[in-house]
């Protein structure tokens, strides 16, 4: 064991129920994103690019696919001799044991893990955000301000502000007020769910929180307001850059589609800040003589014979002849057979769409979730089916 300056705790246990069919078989961090990536790649790659070598991944909901994807962490160079990735599921103690009951409770139950590395700082991360961030800059800010808790923040549009935890700061970036999802937002500075704590402060806060039976054991709802009330030095670190919460079908779809836009903030082509992933080795993709591809991302192992526009095609996808794919996201190993039309749809992993289907047809009634259709993982759509826009199948 070696003492680490900073240990990261990655909260990856949530079900992500708002992603519906996409998280029925896997935890949200293991959902495919932007073709070849999975959502957790961004956070783990941030750790690598920030030289944070000790990462505890707190898991609970359907962990198998997530665990096997993370493995030893070697895809993110996190297989280090003295630290590395640790998968932390709920466990039994001598007398009792329980499921993780809230984000703070999950970290509390693993305080022995953090103590093992005896860090100065603990970085709390969330496995369901898409962003590129150098955590060392935030740590530097934390030290400069002699802060006890630092919350990473980002400016969000006013109309969306009420979806987030909002902060009010004074002239020195010290936080004066924190409100979780207020109906009437007084600020548009939102918490990203990324925190740096002094380990001593966090430990005390977690113990106090665990003893409070009324608490929901949540960082945003309980720990942060409680610490502010006690007058702790809590600062806001303003993050400049691309950050997206992909917790809903709509935001997941939008964030994926944004990556098609040239020169947008999440530059996956940047060689200085690369995003790594645990990819299967597949041959280059083949574009057949009847194919037409425009304004799209296409990954390895695909075979494309049809027409693809404004879409994201993940590894190992098959697109048959006379197929039209528009404004859609095809997740890994999807098969679309001859003559089908897919419009504004997220097709789940290993799903198969037989011949002459029409997925995402305009319905007669106003469609749900902005008209985005979702086909669940492993689902087979029989020949000739018509699925209306906004449906989940």
């Amino acid at each position, binding site marked *: 064991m070696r003492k680490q300056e900073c240990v990261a705790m990655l909260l990856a246990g949530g079900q992500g129920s708002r992603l519906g069919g996409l998280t029925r078989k896997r935890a949200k961090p293991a959902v495919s994103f932007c*073709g070849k990536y999975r959502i957790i790649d961004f956070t783990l790659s941030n750790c690598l690019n920030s030289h944070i070598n000790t990462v505890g991944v707190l898991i609970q909901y359907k962990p198998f696919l997530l665990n096997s994807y993370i493995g030893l962490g070697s895809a993110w160079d996190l297989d280090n001799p003295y630290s590395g990735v640790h998968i932390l599921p709920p466990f039994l103690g001598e007398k009792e044991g329980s499921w993780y009951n809230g984000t703070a409770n999950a970290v509390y139950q693993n305080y022995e893990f953090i103590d093992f590395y005896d860090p100065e700082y603990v970085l709390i991360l969330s496995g369901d955000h898409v962003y590129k961030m150098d955590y060392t800059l935030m740590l530097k800010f934390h030290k400069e301000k002699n802060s006890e808790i630092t919350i990473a923040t980002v400016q969000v549009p006013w109309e969306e502000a009420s979806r987030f935890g909002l902060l009010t700061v004074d002239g020195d970036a010290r936080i004066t007020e924190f409100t979780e999802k207020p109906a009437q937002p007084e600020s548009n500075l939102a918490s990203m769910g990324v925190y740096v704590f002094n380990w001593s402060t966090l430990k005390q806060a977690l113990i106090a929180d665990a003893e409070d039976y009324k608490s929901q054991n949540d960082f945003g709802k309980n720990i942060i307001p409680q610490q502010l009330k006690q007058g702790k030095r809590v600062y806001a670190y303003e993050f400049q850059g691309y950050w997206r919460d992909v917790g809903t079908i709509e935001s997941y779809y939008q964030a994926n589609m944004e990556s098609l836009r040239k020169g947008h903030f999440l530059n996956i082509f940047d060689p200085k800040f690369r995003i790594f992933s645990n*990819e299967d*080795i597949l*041959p280059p*993709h083949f574009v057949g003589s009847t194919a037409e591809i425009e*304004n799209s*991302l*296409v990954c*390895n192992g695909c075979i494309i014979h049809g027409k693809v526009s404004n879409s994201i095609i993940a590894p190992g996808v098959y697109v048959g002849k006379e197929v039209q794919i528009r404004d859609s996201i095809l997740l890994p190993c999807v098969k679309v057979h001859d003559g089908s039309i897919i419009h504004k749809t997220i097709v789940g992993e290993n799903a198969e769409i037989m011949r002459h289907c029409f997925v995402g047809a305009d319905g007669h009634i106003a469609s749900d979730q902005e008209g985005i259709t979702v086909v669940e993982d492993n689902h087979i759509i029989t020949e000739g089916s018509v699925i209306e826009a906004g449906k989940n199948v």
Partner: protein
Amino acid sequence: MSNAIGIIYANSETDNLQGLASERPIAAVPFGGRYRILDFALSSMVNSGIRTIGLVTPHHYRPLLDHLGAGKAWFLDRKDGGLFILPGVFHGLTGNNHTFCIKDLENNMEYLDKDFAENVVISSGNQIYNTNFKNALEFHNDKHADVTLIYKNMNNSSNLTDEIFLEMEKDHKVSTIHNKKGQQRKSLVQSYFVNMLIIRRAILLDIIEKYSSIGCIDLMDILSTNLKVLKIYGSPTCSLIGTIRKVKDYFDRSMELLDLEVRGRLWLGVDQIHTKIKDNPPTQYTSQAKVTNSLIASGCTIAGEVVNSIIFRGVMLEQGCKITNSIILPKCHIHANAQTDYAILDKSVKVNGENILKGTLHNPLVVLKKTVI
């Protein structure tokens, strides 16, 4: 558990690749969008359960080692066994005409000496194939053979390096080894040796010791002189095998990949070809892109027209450029309105706007690494 270790001769040299192999051995020449030629031999061995592989390197081995690292991508970073680099003999200016030079092994006796495996699988490193050696190893054990030569029935040997073919008795025991190097080809179906063999480790050690006084001698020559003494058998294979000797071979073998059947037999089966992972982003097509009948690797940005071509990783094709019947190696940058036809562009070539590069089907144009046109 495999009872064999592997040796790959990655030091075969040629002057016929017009610069594609001047800075690198043939084994390290990029192939098929994201692979190098060596990946095929290496993956075939790994997929056959061989976990100890020695690689005979040529004098310019930097690109090879750059690609291999510790062998992690082939699961060869092991405590027990793994990847071993066997520095080959430096042949001076004359080059090496042997396929399996015994001197190369003599210099690396330690590797053969310290292992406990019964057999050694030896392959050349300039062939494109996806073969599982399990059947041949079983055959070798069943026959209690000293040596098993792997052959393929073909009516011409244009796909092979050396024109060695075998004559066999009914039980597959080899009776004659014909070495037709340099002689005229006949269009008969013959059992051509495909530069892969299995030999008992003890016998290989014996041969190396006995022939140590002779400078450079090919293992195949030794086997044909000792045909009566050793139990040499032939085991057939029907895998696809393509040897890269000259530019035309490289071009044809590459273009064959556009055929689904070839890709199926090489890539889409149970045994995968492994290669170094680069973690490239997906390939981006802009709204001006027009691509037909082509293989495109990851990390490219495509705004131009691509027809019947193979595009490697990280290539940039600007708007209005036209790539037809060409092979574009990694990190090339083709500017607006440039055209290539029957061209092979080595790594990091930059073609400025409005240029037209034109080769022919029988004589593809090769542009050297890092050239700016």
